[in-house]
């Protein structure tokens, strides 16, 4: 018994030692397993977890660049950035959001829609980031809030620079406007440049020169904690402000022109012939671009369009009008150049023109006719029969080729949005578009700028400028220079000019321009009413474009026609004749007579420009 116990004890110790060694081995294996796992996490997958760790704590915040300013040619600011105040609430720092809203509503205006918007934004806000309650606070509200600030912890105003157009409605179609970026635009641009609330140019210069104006977004790398509170800035790349634009527009001339247009719908384009610089570009009616910067309300948008006059339609570039009689100088020049009419050759005008073997009468605006008419007289008095005959003799192909030299039927390529090409009809065009052949009668009415032909006011002004320089053509453009306001460097814009319109004889130019001079200064000139008190010589051409087709033998009675069916009144002009400084095209929709309605507007604009600029550019 005793022996067995002793023996057992030895055996037990031996057995235990085996167990202890196995236990030590198991310990080694388990700790080895942990080390392998940690090796996997810390060494093999380290890069992965390091990224995740940085993603946790590092947040990239963008800072918007200041948008470039826009100046007119005199150095006046026409698009700037103004500080606006918005009211932000940081829910984490506010005791009770609803109480705070109630208290705030006692001192400033907070309406229902502000609160609904705020509540919506509150649901998806990031911790410790302000939620906007009101935007565009006025100065009084800012003052009230500043005084009461201590009562509202977590309520703050944020200042940001917002686009502002100090001239209001003036030059709106030149500038365009900026607005909040939308889905489609985000796809078009580099979206990283538009993080945050940065606006984008929607139309006009603001859109065309978006890349220059926008600048480059800056970034702040910040460290945040789990609640999203910013603890420190790790790295900062400041934003690069956008470049300033200096436009060729003369802001004062622009407002004179807008005022002169009165209440009418229509357009006016004024060009400096020597450079192609657009001095004024008006489309009526106007609207206020500032409405769009913060996002226009549905109500305001409806009000804008209620009148049905489509203010956002840029008539100067997108408006395609039948040019009417303002085409006569070009047709006339073409006839002289191609030898279908002599410099002093006379056409007998009996009040109508008939094609051989056809019954239809192509009427002159003057029922009794102009009698014996040369090119000079035909332009001065705007004789239709002369140009019916000339056009018929030239044929549509020659007319097309000639007018093509002046840029009709093609986009001028002006540096802004929404330009349209107009229409210069040809046999080929008709076959393609209308699937029929060209009729001789269509050639006849093309002679007075009617029929299929369409032109934009810019095309008319640009062609008139080319006429004033005897065929020398300049690329119309709005941008004169780009200024980098960080380096102070100004880059003047050079543009390539289109091919000149070439004419064999200089005397033919003179003759056409003489005819246009008689329009204004001649005894029977169709715009002689504006010529009496001019201190300089002006060449012009009136036009009256049919909107409403009158039947054969029917009388056109301006008084009895509803205003919207009345003819468009047109006038193109340049001055002074010897050394042209300005060329203008005016169209007044449903204005009636070009001489009576459109010409005085052009005169006012030219008068102002010549008196105030002496042809020199102050800038």
């Amino acid at each position, binding site marked *: 018994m005793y022996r067995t116990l002793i023996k057992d004890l030895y055996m037990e110790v031996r*057995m235990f030692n085996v167990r202890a060694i196995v236990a030590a081995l198991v310990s080694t294996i388990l*700790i080895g397993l*942990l080390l392998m796992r940690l090796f996997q996490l810390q060494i093999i997958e*380290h890069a992965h977890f390091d990224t995740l760790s940085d993603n946790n704590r590092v947040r990239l915040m963008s800072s918007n660049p200041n948008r470039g300013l826009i100046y007119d040619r005199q150095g006046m600011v026409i698009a700037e950035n103004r500080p606006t105040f918005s009211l932000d609430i940081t829910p984490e720092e506010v005791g009770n959001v609803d109480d705070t809203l109630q208290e705030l509503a006692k001192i400033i205006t907070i309406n229902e829609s502000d609160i609904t918007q705020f509540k919506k934004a509150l649901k998806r806000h990031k911790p410790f980031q302000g939620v906007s309650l009101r935007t565009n606070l006025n100065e009084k509200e800012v003052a009230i809030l500043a005084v009461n600030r201590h009562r509202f912890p977590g309520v703050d105003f944020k200042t940001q620079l917002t686009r502002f157009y100090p001239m209001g409605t003036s030059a709106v179609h030149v500038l365009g406007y900026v607005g909040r970026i939308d889905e489609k635009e985000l796809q078009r641009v580099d979206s990283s440049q538009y993080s945050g609330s940065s606006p984008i140019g929607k139309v006009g210069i603001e859109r065309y020169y978006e890349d220059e104006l926008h600048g480059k977004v800056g970034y702040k790398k910040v460290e945040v904690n789990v609640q999203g509170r910013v603890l420190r800035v790790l790295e900062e790349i400041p934003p690069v402000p956008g470049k300033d634009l200096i436009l060729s527009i003369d802001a004062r001339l622009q407002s004179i022109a807008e005022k002169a247009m009165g209440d009418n719908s229509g357009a006016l384009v004024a060009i400096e012939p020597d450079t192609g610089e657009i001095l004024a570009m008006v489309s009526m009616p106007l609207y206020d671009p500032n409405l769009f910067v913060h996002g226009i309300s549905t109500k305001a948008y409806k009000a804008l369009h209620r009148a049905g006059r489509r203010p956002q339609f840029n008539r100067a570039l997108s408006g395609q009008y039948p040019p009417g009689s303002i085409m006569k100088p070009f047709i006339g020049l073409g006839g002289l150049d191609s030898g279908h009419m002599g410099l002093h050759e006379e056409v007998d005008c009996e009040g109508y023109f008939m094609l051989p073997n056809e019954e239809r009468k192509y009427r002159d605006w003057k029922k009794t006719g102009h009698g014996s008419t040369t090119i000079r007289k035909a332009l001065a008095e705007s004789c239709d029969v002369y140009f019916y005959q000339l056009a018929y003799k030239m044929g549509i192909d020659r007319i097309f080729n000639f007018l093509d030299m002046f840029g009709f039927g093609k986009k001028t390529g002006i540096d802004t949005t929404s330009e349209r090409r107009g229409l210069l009809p040809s046999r080929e065009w008709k076959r393609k578009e209308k699937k029929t052949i060209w009729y001789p009668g269509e050639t006849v009415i093309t002679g007075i700028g009617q029929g299929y032909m369409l032109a934009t006011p810019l095309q008319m002004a640009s062609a008139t400028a080319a006429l004033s320089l005897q065929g020398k053509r300049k690329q119309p453009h709005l941008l004169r220079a780009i200024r980098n306001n960080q380096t102070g460097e100004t880059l003047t814009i050079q543009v390539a000019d289109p091919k000149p319109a070439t004419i064999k004889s200089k005397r033919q130019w003179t003759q056409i321009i003489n005819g246009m001079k008689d329009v204004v200064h001649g005894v029977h000139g169709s715009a002689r009413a504006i010529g009496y008190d001019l201190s300089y010589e002006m060449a012009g051409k009136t036009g009256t474009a049919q909107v409403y087709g009158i039947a054969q033998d029917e009388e056109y009675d301006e008084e009895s026609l509803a205003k919207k069916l009345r003819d468009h009144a047109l006038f193109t002009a340049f001055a002074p004749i010897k050394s042209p400084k300005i060329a203008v095209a005016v169209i007044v929709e449903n204005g009636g007579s070009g001489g009576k309605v459109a010409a005085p507007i052009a005169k006012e604009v030219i008068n102002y420009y010549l008196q105030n600029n002496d042809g020199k550019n102050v800038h």
Partner: protein
Amino acid sequence: MYTDTIGSQNSGRFRLLQSMHLDPPLVFALLLLTACGLGILYSAGGQNIDLIIRQSTRLALAFGVMLLMAQIPPQNFKLWAPWIFLLGVTLLAFVLILGDIGKGAQRWLDFGFVRFQPSEMMKLATPMVVAWYLADKALPPSFKHLLIAFVLVIIPTMLIAKQPDLGTSLLIAAAGFFIIYFASLKWRFIAGFTLLTGALTPVVWHYMHAYQRQRVLTFLNPESDPLGAGYHIIQSKIAIGSGGLYGKGWLNGTQSHLDFLPERSTDFIFSVFAEEFGFMGVILLLAIYFFIVIRGLVIASSAQDSFGRLLAGSLSMTFLVYLFVNVGMVSGLLPVVGVPLPLVSYGGTSMVTLMAGFGMLMSINSHRRLLRK
């Protein structure tokens, strides 16, 4: 035999510790570990001095308990074992009944001046009673003895699982199992048990509630629920992984200091350490733990009687289980069960129990009957 060698090596310098019945290598390892723990806690707790003071107070108390336990000869533990066990089981039952009345989980007994957790007591009482039972039997144990030993383990395990405190009940079951293991449970029993567990897994899965299955699935793929149940483990893995080889440096862990890592002072404190000290630090920390476990096993093999051997072996291996479950949990190897990192995590009760266990180890090591002299 072993102690003689160690004793002669350290005879000069460590006489004082030895005269206090303490084991110098173990004391130094524990001091080193707890010092590291305080350092990590200072960082994890956001450099809160109050936290450190409270933890240090607890540590002092725990070392005091260890010193006290070391003075008690192991024969006394053996003598008291059944009575402590009976008291513990009674208290557990009491707690369960109180919990039923209070309608909710109840782990604490509140005596007014001190709150007491009977399940902590059972962490020591269970291995003690199993060791007491098996020590006098001829080993390896007969089937009958084995069965009784299992019953002794299962009673407290079930009572605590019902609280419910799954983590603690598993630790107690492990402690009891290690006694049976060291009592030379036949290998074929162990193999059979392992096989049975494996075979039962699909059956258990079948009878599990949907939310329990969800918990298992979240453990297997925490990324499937990154904001809910998977959040802890994802953030913990990010903390550990981003530490790399050398770590981000003390007090520089971003996951912990920017609050991404939850429970960083308690259950997930290892992740803070791994983030700030990297793989190198982790190797050193695990080395300290490994040393403690091995030192415990050495003490066990040199113990004079069966009771001491069994208890010492079980205490050492339970300590390892603590470590493995916690580190396995924070590194995504094991599901999230609330087991703290032993002697490092912030919190008192388990620390006192652990140090009491080390006190017993030292008592077993130092109180020797001079039998064979």
